[in-house]
């Protein structure tokens, strides 16, 4: 190191002394201590409900088929009574936008609710932690076990833990693939050792991802991988609900006897028991202020309240609060940001519901024949040729009638009654349209193709096309 480098680092001499080895400092495992309390119960309830939804949904039936089946092999998505096709991609995009806006809305309102209670990373980490505790015991027992040399007993515990983790992961991977291919067929294939190569691959891939993320990476996913953690501050304001340590009440922190009067000792309410650090799944100290590593799980609130109860102080040294409240100001729930997010959210949601409700499961694409602009046929009529593509997006076979309008005297030459199209079929059709040129006012005219299914009011669409011909004066 040259002398200039010392100057540039300024007041950070510790960075110098740690040496280059610190760059590769091994990640320290976080052993979150088990916690009981209101928020822990809420989270457990949430975790159980979400796991039940995840593992249960593929087994639901809707009539003859799986209720929720994103059938990738056959390129159609079944969601209860609805079936979506690749042409419906628009709805999927709107759904994603809706999810994005919800995240904005709930974050502005209540901070990282998503992270602490419903993020898959939290849900599976909780499940894995539960297994870990059942096998290896409490936090201190786990730490002791990890420090101890390898013995038969330790090996057995580790082996059982990883076996259970892998089993849960495998079932998770199987369920994941069950959303994309028929789950009952997949299950019987597994029983009979008759799996397709791609399905097997994805089950293993997703299982290992679950095992790695929930078993090994854990809080590192939140810290390094989650984009939301990095930009959440953009959605926060001084009225956002956050988990915070009451600095003025807690400081100066320090241990004391239960009988001691903190005022006499010049201490705040924080007894410095460090339990809030021990329960933290991301290994931070909430007393250092709001940090982006905080996933808002409220474990520190639960444990601190328990301690406050024990020492006979008021609860809420660590609590859900807002920056304004901490500063002694009032918290405004309805502020422009919330109203704006809420109205956009409601608007998009209503628009999506209306759009899906009024969706016509029929598509008609019209492409003019590229070879000729037009041609004259017998009787002095002008003929244009069109390539039509009819897509039946309904769940059953349909019979359609095609007609054309827009200019008086247009005639369709081909037989365009009773076009039978199977469910999901893309039907190609060439049609010739003829017209007496006397009726043409311009060289290029708009005409309308109408496709309808007799007797079914909702199966009716119109598409425009151009009819080209010479103008006779």
């Amino acid at each position, binding site marked *: *190191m*040259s002398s*200039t*480098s010392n100057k*540039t*680092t300024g007041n950070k001499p510790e*960075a110098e002394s740690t040496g*280059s080895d610190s*760059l*590769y*400092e091994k*990640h320290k495992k976080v052993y979150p201590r088990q916690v009981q309390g209101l928020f822990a119960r809420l989270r457990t309830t949430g975790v159980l409900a979400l796991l039940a939804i995840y593992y249960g949904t593929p087994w639901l039936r809707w009539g003859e088929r799986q209720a929720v089946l994103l059938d*990738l*092999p*056959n*390129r159609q998505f079944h969601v209860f009574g609805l079936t979506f096709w*690749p042409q419906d*991609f628009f709805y999927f995009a709107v759904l994603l936008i809706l999810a994005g806006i919800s995240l904005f809305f709930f974050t502005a309102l209540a901070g990282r609710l998503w992270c602490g209670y419903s993020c898959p990373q939290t849900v599976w980490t909780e499940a894995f932690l539960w297994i870990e505790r059942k096998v290896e015991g409490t936090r201190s027992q786990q730490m002791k076990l990890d420090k101890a040399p390898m013995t038969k007993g330790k090996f057995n515990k580790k082996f059982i833990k990883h076996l259970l983790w892998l089993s849960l992961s495998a079932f998770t991977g199987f369920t994941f693939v069950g959303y*994309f*291919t028929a789950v009952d067929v997949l299950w019987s294939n597994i029983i009979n050792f008759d799996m*397709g*190569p*791609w*399905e097997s*691959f*994805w089950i293993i891939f997703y299982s290992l991802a679950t095992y790695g993320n929930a078993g090994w990476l854990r809080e*590192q996913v939140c810290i*390094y*991988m989650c984009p939301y953690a990095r930009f959440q501050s953009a959605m926060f304001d001084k009225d956002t609900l956050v988990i915070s340590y009451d600095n003025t009440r807690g400081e100066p922190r320090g241990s004391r006897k239960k009988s001691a009067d903190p005022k006499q000792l010049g201490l705040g309410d924080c007894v410095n028991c460090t339990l809030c650090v021990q329960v933290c799944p991301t290994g931070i100290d909430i007393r250092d202020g709001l940090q982006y590593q905080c996933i808002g799980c409220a474990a520190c609130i639960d444990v601190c309240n328990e301690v406050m109860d024990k020492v006979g102080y008021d609860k809420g040294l660590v609590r859900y609060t807002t920056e304004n409240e901490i500063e002694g100001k009032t918290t405004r729930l309805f502020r422009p940001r919330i109203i704006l997010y809420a109205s956009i959210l409601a608007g998009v949601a209503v628009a999506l519901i209306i759009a899906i409700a009024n969706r016509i499961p029929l598509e008609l694409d019209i492409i003019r024949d590229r070879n000729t602009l037009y041609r004259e046929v017998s009787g002095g009529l002008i003929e244009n040729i069109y390539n039509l593509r009819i897509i039946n997006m309904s769940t059953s076979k349909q019979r359609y009638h095609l007609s054309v309008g827009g200019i008086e005297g247009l005639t369709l030459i081909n037989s365009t009654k009773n076009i039978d199209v199977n469910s999901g079929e893309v039907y190609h059709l060439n049609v010739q349209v003829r017209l007496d040129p006397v009726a043409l006012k311009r060289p290029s005219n708009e005409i309308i193709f109408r496709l309808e299914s007799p007797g079914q009011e909702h199966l009716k669409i119109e598409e425009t096309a151009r009819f080209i011909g010479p103008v006779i004066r």
Partner: protein
Amino acid sequence: MASTLNRRKTDIPTVQRVIAVFWPSFLTAGLATVLFFTAFNPEEMSLCLGNTKPISNVGAYTIGFFLFWLLTSTTCALTCYFQRPCHQPVSPTDTNNSL
């Protein structure tokens, strides 16, 4: 000076570097796969390519995804590579410390 700059620039855990290459590329590869295969049906594509032994749809999605991932992770890796500071003297004493 150069080595300090280097260190401060690169003072991030290895796990973060690995993630910086493989994770954003995973996300964008997933998005690209969805968009690509929404527009193109693998069955129709294999007809166009004159493939005599067509692969299953799920197989095509899988291969497509990993090709996209290869492409996007290459991009991420190159970004990380070019992010290294370049305004530094190349001297033998410093090269020992640079990463």
